[in-house]
């Protein structure tokens, strides 16, 4: 395959609209009529919608798609699928069915699309789901993703705002994939760093979620376009504050050098604009600030749970080769919402 995928304005979750713009629009939408079976809707800013169909079963529904952030179509398919499937895991659910969402230029080599969909379908199978169909639209740029339906026991839903003061925060994947992909776009990323980013982005959050189920998880979300601090801000829900321990943050080490060279995304700056006023950095380097604002594609789970359980959970994850770390602690609401303690 000789054609490389045409890049648009930065792929993956860096292509998302900013959280600031989005909240203003969402607030103005008319409220849907109340339905007691809608357990999680968009007014909670959660990862997916959850609708109860019986006392034991609720279905979890989500979709996500975006432009490519890597040159190889098969790899892009895997990343886009892993990213879309992740929202089901962030809610504590199991994947059941998935549908392809495709935007593709009519005059481009259809084999490229075949490769993208092969990557996607492999990830759906790995997730234990069935790829059951899809829709494709002729468009000027390539975009791909999935609509996914899963199930969850209503009593075991992980909301992203269920954290309690005293809980610690666990992050299950390294940060910095947005910065590394951006550096790669201008030819600055090393092959090793790009391979590490791809490995991370194609890894399903399924495995971390399976370990989570054994513990008393209070809140969970996946870290994607809004960066760690953006998603953390939503988790705090205007009723909690937290410390972030910068020295414990797992990140792709090369991302630091690229951040120091200002190879930064527009989305990272939008995240800073959106949530920066709520954050105080204590002895934190510029590069680490950028890593904390960096938009992630198919990022890890961010989990709040009691400290004694978190230590066991992280150990179990590390034994399975996940770069999981305890990265912070929730507290009662304070003047400073997010205090980042230096490296």
């Amino acid at each position: 395959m000789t054609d490389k995928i045409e890049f648009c304005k930065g792929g993956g979750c860096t292509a998302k609209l900013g959280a600031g713009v989005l909240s203003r629009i969402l607030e103005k939408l008319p409220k849907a009529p109340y339905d007691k079976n809608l357990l999680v809707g968009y007014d909670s800013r959660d990862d997916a919608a959850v609708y109860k169909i019986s006392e034991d079963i609720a279905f979890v529904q989500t979709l996500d798609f975006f432009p490519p952030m890597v040159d190889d179509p098969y790899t892009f398919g895997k990343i886009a699928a892993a990213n879309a499937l992740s929202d089901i895991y962030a809610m504590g659910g199991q994947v059941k069915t998935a549908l392809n969402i495709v935007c593709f230029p009519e005059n481009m080599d259809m084999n490229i699309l075949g490769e993208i969909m092969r990557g996607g379908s492999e990830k759906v199978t790995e997730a234990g789901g069935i790829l059951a169909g899809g829709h494709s639209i002729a468009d000027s740029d390539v975009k791909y993703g999935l609509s996914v339906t899963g199930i969850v026991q209503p009593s075991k839903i992980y909301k992203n705002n269920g954290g309690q003061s005293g809980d610690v925060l666990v992050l299950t994947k390294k940060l910095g994939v947005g910065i590394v992909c951006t550096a790669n776009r201008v030819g600055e990323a090393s092959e090793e760093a790009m391979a590490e980013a791809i490995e991370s982005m194609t890894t399903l959050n399924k495995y971390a979620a399976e370990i989570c189920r054994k513990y008393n998880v209070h809140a969970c979300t996946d870290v994607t376009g809004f960066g760690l601090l953006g998603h953390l801000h939503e988790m705090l829900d205007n009723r909690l504050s937290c410390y972030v321990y910068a020295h414990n943050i797992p990140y792709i080490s090369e991302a630091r050098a690229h951040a120091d060279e200002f190879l930064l995304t527009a989305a990272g700056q939008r995240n800073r604009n959106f949530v920066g006023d709520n954050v105080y950095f204590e002895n934190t380097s510029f590069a680490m600030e950028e890593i904390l604002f960096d938009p992630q594609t198919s990022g890890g789970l961010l989990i709040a749970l009691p400290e004694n359980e978190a230590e066991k959970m992280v150990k179990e994850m590390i034994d399975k080769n996940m770069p999981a770390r305890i990265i912070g602690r929730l507290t009662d609401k304070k003047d400073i919402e997010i205090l980042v303690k230096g490296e």
Partner: protein
Amino acid sequence: MIKVNAMGDPCPIPVVKTKNAIKELKGGGQVETLVDNEIAVQNLTKMANQKGYGVASEKISEGSYKVVMTIGEAVAEEKTEEVCIPDSRGNKLIVISSSYMGTGDDELGAALMKAFIFALTQQEELPSTIIFYNGGAKLTCEDSAALEDIKSLEAQGVEIMTCGTCLNHYGLSDKLKVGSVTNMYAIAEKMLGASLIIKP
């Protein structure tokens, strides 16, 4: 002045083009970059601020912005500016060099140290940082009687640091239960930067 046209370029291309232009200056001078969105202006400004360049930006028209960076001769040689912002906590540093408070009877010393740390948790004005070294390193580890109080201090925003060499020495490297591991470089830097050092 070198002019850079980065209209229609997604981030980080405007930054990359501007950096190349700054290299071409070979010393001091000005670089003017044209971009089509405000986020690109912010990313360029962020770079200028980090590098200590002078920077001014203006909106020329809808979808058209100009960012002018002024690079001084010295600045072009990678000069960084030190800015001191006084901390609201007055940057008080407590160093705990032993698990005992005072000399005489060690049983009494241990009880005093526990009481001192508890008393700290009750203070209105807290230190910005507490550093534990030598015998003090035992206090932040498993089985320390003061552990809960130190955690409470950390939860109140006090930075807790323990000397890594000391943890190694006492075989406690995997027993640290609160705060972070630090090194002598950071300890020296913290001490020099403190407005007041308290050693119980």
